[in-house]
């Protein structure tokens, strides 16, 4: 199979403009004849659903949460990038594009990233119009802050709750369309399979989480906006419900999964405290604007931070990356933290932590300034750790946060299955091997508000509406398979919870396919995962009969998918014999410990296609074409 990125020809800056003109349109009167199924109601899903409904399509949304507003986009703290250049500090669409491409370690598609930077400015306008209370200057203009991987201030934010406010904006637009009857919302409904009829995505099979009923929905197109797969590592900053099921089910129906090994480890999370822990909490990257990261110079220094004199502290990011300092990109900051902890200089219980110290900033600008800017983050930290970050430095350590990999999509955000569009974190398209801070919100909203409304029309214009119903054999078969699988889970009757397996899987993934990977560790993981999977299907316990609300059954289904997906992730990590962005292979590093890319052999998107149970997936390569940018050594020194 040849993967065609469908990137339009022409100069980079004109591609999207030109493509928008050349795309076919659907007559306004005909739009309401098309039904669009949108799975996931985070930034990408909610914005797409609302925008498509505004255009006149019939939309149905699905989310497993009890309300569309609770999708995990809500937890994004720091901000959203846009090339507004309001600060007059030299920002431009091209600079945002370049920063993002470089931040992604030259493993993203140029044209997609350029388009992302281009529409970023519209996103801010749209959100302001919806009533998103972005932070303002005293004069009433929008305020910006700087974020990792950029030397300009282009990040718009709402205190430490930017994701929440943006999602509430998209959700309110969605609410308006629901009240107008253009959108039908199905909360507490989980997609468990994709239905492909005649080679085209035509519907989904869902389980109503309240009644336990399995049923199907038919549409003219299916949009997956189901987020990432960080919880394959069990401990991550993602919500407990985040899962790979929707995208993995699509993968098993033929959609290619691209670059699953590109996982992002966020440098500023609260360290793990015990093995009962269910999740990790992120402290926004924006904290690195005013906080300084350091560890003691001598390994095993057990003194309390205030007892360690300035001369015995190692501000290792400032030392190693003088021009970006504490604002070095996430992958680099994370690895640097791992490195100092591996040297025995980590702080806190277990020695897996570094200090994020605000005492300088507090001395310089006063506690009130810090409280105004980060108050809620400091409160959050104090809640969790029972320490006062205004008095003692925060302790932080990297944790799984975001996954750049996802279902393969072309320039139009359509997967290799016609009619299946993938948006936001669920696709692979814009961040390459590493995502810069404040770019996830930008991408989710760009896809939903400003890309898919155009490209979906172009697709639909080429196909007549309807023509398939839930009674089609493909639907019946998919429903049967879903029901059988649920029954199989209920029939195991073991006595280990799905959580136990999930935790075990997480340990394997973190140890062997985490911040640093090697051929040896990956092979070890690839041997262990099938064992664990086999044990799961023998010993997992799922009480109940599958009727009604059953959190244990939901979890077991998701863990079962993670147990298969983890293998795909490791296969991809093993095949990519280079280090780039979030994918750091110990064998491929420079003498001073920086990632070493291999552009000659690996400048491509690795898209994996399912070949059947117990068969290795097939690899398809989409070469990355560099028309404008020339991949260079990514330096933040």
């Amino acid at each position, binding site marked *: 199979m040849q993967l065609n990125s469908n990137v339009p020809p022409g100069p980079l800056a004109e591609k999207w403009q030109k493509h928008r003109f050349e795309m076919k349109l659907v007559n306004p009167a005909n739009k309401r004849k098309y039904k669009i199924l949108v799975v996931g109601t985070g930034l990408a899903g909610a*914005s797409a659903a*609302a*925008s498509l409904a505004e255009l006149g399509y019939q939309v149905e949304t699905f989310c497993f*949460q*009890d309300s569309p507003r*609770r999708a*995990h986009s*809500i*937890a994004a703290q720091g901000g959203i990038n846009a090339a507004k250049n*309001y600060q007059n500090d030299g920002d431009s669409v091209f600079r945002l594009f370049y920063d993002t491409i470089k931040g992604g370690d030259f493993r993203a598609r140029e044209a997609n990233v350029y388009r992302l930077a281009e529409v970023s400015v519209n996103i*801010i*306008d*749209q*959100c*302001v*119009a*919806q*009533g998103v*209370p972005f*932070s*303002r*200057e005293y004069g009433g*203009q*929008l305020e910006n802050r700087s974020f990792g991987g950029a030397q300009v201030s282009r990040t*718009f934010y*709402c205190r430490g*709750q930017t994701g*929440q*406010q943006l999602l*509430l904006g998209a959700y*309110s*637009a969605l*609410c*308006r369309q629901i*009240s107008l009857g253009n959108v039908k*919302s199905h*909360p507490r409904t989980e997609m468990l399979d994709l239905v492909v009829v005649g080679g085209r995505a035509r519907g989904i099979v869902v389980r109503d989480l*309240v009644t336990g009923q399995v049923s199907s929905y038919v549409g003219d197109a299916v949009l997956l906006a189901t987020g990432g797969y960080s919880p394959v590592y069990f401990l991550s900053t993602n*919500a*407990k419900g985040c899962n790979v099921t929707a995208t993995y089910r699509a993968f098993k129906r033929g959609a290619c999964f691209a670059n699953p090994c590109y996982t992002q480890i966020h440098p500023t999370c609260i360290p793990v*405290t*015990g093995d*009962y*822990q*269910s999740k990790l*909490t992120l402290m926004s990257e924006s904290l690195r604007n005013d906080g300084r990261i350091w560890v003691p110079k001598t390994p095993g220094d057990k003194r309390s931070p205030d007892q360690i004199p300035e001369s015995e502290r190692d501000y290792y990011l400032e030392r190693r990356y003088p021009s970006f300092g504490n604002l070095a990109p996430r992958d680099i900051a994370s690895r640097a933290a791992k490195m100092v902890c591996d040297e025995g200089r980590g702080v806190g219980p277990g020695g897996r932590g570094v200090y994020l110290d605000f005492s300088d900033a507090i001395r310089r600008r006063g506690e009130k300034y810090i409280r105004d800017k980060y108050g809620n983050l400091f409160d*959050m930290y104090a*809640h*969790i750790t*029972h320490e006062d970050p205004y008095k003692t430095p925060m302790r932080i350590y990297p944790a799984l946060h975001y996954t750049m990999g996802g279902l393969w999509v072309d320039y139009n955000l359509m997967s290799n299955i016609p009619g299946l569009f993938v948006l936001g974190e669920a696709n692979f398209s814009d961040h390459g091997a590493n995502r810069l801070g404040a770019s996830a919100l930008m991408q989710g909203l760009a896809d939903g*508000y400003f890309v898919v409304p155009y490209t979906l029309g172009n697709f639909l214009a080429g196909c007549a509406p309807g023509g398939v119903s839930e009674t089609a054999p493909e639907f019946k078969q998919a429903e049967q398979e879903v029901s059988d699988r649920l029954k199989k889970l209920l029939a195991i009757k073991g*006595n*280990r*919870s799905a*959580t136990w397996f999930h935790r075990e899987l997480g340990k394997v993934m973190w140890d062997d396919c985490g911040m640093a990977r090697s051929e040896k560790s990956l092979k070890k993981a690839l041997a262990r995962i099938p064992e664990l999977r086999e044990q799961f299907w023998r010993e997992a*316990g799922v*009480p109940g009969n599958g009727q*009604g*609300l059953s*959190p244990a059954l939901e979890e077991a289904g998701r863990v079962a998918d993670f147990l298969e997906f983890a293998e795909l992730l490791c296969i991809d990590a093993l095949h990519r014999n280079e280090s780039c962005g979030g994918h750091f292979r110990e064998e491929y590093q420079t003498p001073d410990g920086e990632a070493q890319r291999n552009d000659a052999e690996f400048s491509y998107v690795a898209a994996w296609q399912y070949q059947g149970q117990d068969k290795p997936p097939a690899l398809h390569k989409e070469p990355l074409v560099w028309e404008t940018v020339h991949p260079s050594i990514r330096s933040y020194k």
Partner: protein
Amino acid sequence: MKFTLHVWRQSGPNARGEMKQYEATGVNPDMSFLEMLDVVNQELIARGEEPIAFDHDCREGICGSCGIVINGVPHGPRRRLANGKIEAKTTCQTYMRDFTDGQHLWLEPWRAGAFPVIKDLVVDRSAFDRIMQAGGYISANTGGAPDGNAILIPKRDQEKAMDAAQCIGCGACVAACKNASAMLFVAAKVSHLGILPQGQPERAQRVVRMVEQMDKEGFGNCTNYMECEAACPKEISRQFIARMNRDYLWAQTQDLETTSSGGAG
């Protein structure tokens, strides 16, 4: 640490529920409340019993999914902070170190007619979504927005709107209110949009429609207990309720209906 839990168990929306007793042993003080329940649930699963159902997702106090009434207080008893304020937090931000070893803990779902129980500690909060659908938005189609700086917003207005917009829609206000009133939630939503210049064109209809829907859902009336304010994990102020009361009165002086005679031509 160990605890005796008294948990509301109800197998389905129409089933009869009752308080059942469980022992939680080997609890680490740094565990979050939900992690403690995870451990209890793992033991239940090992015994082949149905685990205790509770809503949760982000586990960092922002998604608004979790909500358990612990010892009579939504999201659990609060400490008084050094500055005299009552601590603000969600259930997932409750830690076992806040309780005393051997304590009995009563776990109940949000109790309100408008929030029917689905199972155990899980309730149906879709009433909030319907209130939002009644008017909790600014009608701004994608694409037509002017530049973000075209309309200046005084910092104090933006901050105030943000104070209201922080609401996570968890429903603790309803659970805490002796009348199961949803005024704090609705007021936060009405105020968020009503303070901003972008929210002005629909301000009157918005407050009237949202209050109407709130009444329709069967929430109680506000009698200014301010228990909601104390229970709110995001410290939404009572002042927003006063603001909504003011807005609603003002809205009665406005023309709410629009007439349209078509525009064919």
